[in-house]
């Protein structure tokens, strides 16, 4: 039975609800706002019709007309990312001290690199032992024509130190280190990115110690079981 009761709509609430209606579609209003809107919707046919109309507009989301391609776009962006030194560009320039800090930050290995280096060390030591044991255990089966190298030449050809440089070390720095310590590359980079070096026997232990002090050197180990540790 109809009571004939007339519900008066609060004009102020109506205005507030009108402005909040679009966000009823996705329930992104606060709990209090939702309650106010729901209460008002029960009484206001105009707002119910408005909400219904907005649902229709939302359901008719226009199709995109442009056809951007993520692969193409990212390839273009990658070219711009390549030369960016993130650490350097993210902070204002602060002179040489800041630059040196950035260099050190780049050279310093990330936590996962410690594990990678440990694995590399194990492989290098293993390879070193194999190299040391090979001549004694297995007699040479092949001889290079008739040439008989001198003892010094053989030692130089074999190398006597294994070095692992930090991955970010530029070639220029690597060259400087080699020249500074009178080292020559005999082999490398190996599969573990290590280099076999030859250091003159006379000052080898001192050169090895100096190599270990180089910031770019992650590991330097003798291959002939000599001192230097």
């Amino acid at each position, binding site marked *: 039975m109809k009571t004939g009761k007339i519900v008066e709509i609060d004009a102020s609430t109506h205005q507030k609800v009108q402005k909040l209606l679009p966000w009823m579609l996705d329930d*992104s209003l606060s709990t209090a706002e939702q309650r106010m809107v729901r209460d008002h919707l029960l009484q206001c046919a105009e707002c119910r019709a408005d909400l219904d109309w907005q649902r*229709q507009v939302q359901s008719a989301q226009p199709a995109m007309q442009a056809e951007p391609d993520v692969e193409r776009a990212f390839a*273009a962006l990658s070219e711009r990312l390549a030369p960016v030194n993130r650490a350097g560009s993210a902070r204002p320039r602060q002179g040489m001290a800041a630059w040196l800090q950035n260099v050190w930050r780049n050279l310093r290995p990330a936590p996962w690199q410690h594990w990678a280096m440990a694995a590399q060390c194990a492989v290098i030591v293993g390879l070193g032992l194999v190299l040391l044991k090979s001549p004694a255990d297995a007699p040479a089966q092949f001889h290079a024509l008739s040439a008989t190298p001198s003892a010094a030449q053989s030692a130089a050809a074999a190398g006597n130190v294994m070095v692992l440089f930090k991955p970010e070390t530029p070639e220029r720095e690597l060259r400087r280190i080699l020249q500074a310590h009178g080292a020559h590359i005999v082999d490398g980079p190996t599969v573990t990115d290590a280099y076999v070096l030859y250091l003159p026997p006379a000052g080898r232990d001192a050169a090895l110690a100096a190599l270990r002090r180089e910031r770019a050197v992650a590991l330097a180990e003798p291959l002939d079981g000599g001192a230097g540790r």
Partner: protein
Amino acid sequence: MFGLLRKNSEPPQAKPGHGRDESGDLRLIGQIVAGDRRAFETLYRSYFSRLARFLDRMTHNTALIEEIINDAMLVVWRRADTFDHSCKLSTWIFSIAYRTALKAIGHRDEPVDADPDLQHGDAMHEPEAGFIQQQLQQRVAQALGMLPLEQRMVVNLTYYHGMGYEEIAGIMECPVNTFKTRMFHARRRLKTLLADTAE
């Protein structure tokens, strides 16, 4: 009238912006601060389509949209350490993209015309219901294209990106009340435009 088409319309499409769990993206932004390019690529790909849909209401120029996204994401890459978590990550990224787009299009506020051919798509080969739905989409696209830029983007973010009013106000950098009023006027204008196109 517009309402007559309703029974043939499909349910609203999913709106990825609303209620999206940002915890994964926040983890990515932390990795990006540390210089992780792979994390950046993951974030880039997760935002690309959303930004593209957002920008498509500002310009239909494909190359320009890709350029705007790249410029905006380059800012994200370079300035990730300045994101202070005072707003949602999506608000921050959309805000950058919006400002980048305004600069790129020179704030010309040109109406974005809907291309009937593109809007119809394969309508001729689809059932009638699909055709009617696409007609509806075309009318909405035309009406949206005639709104002033700011009103158009407000409607776009509210209806098609499922963003709350505070988030949109943050993106457009305007007070919440101003923004709500802007949306109110945008709806009235849109209603008039849709009624006109139905005649």
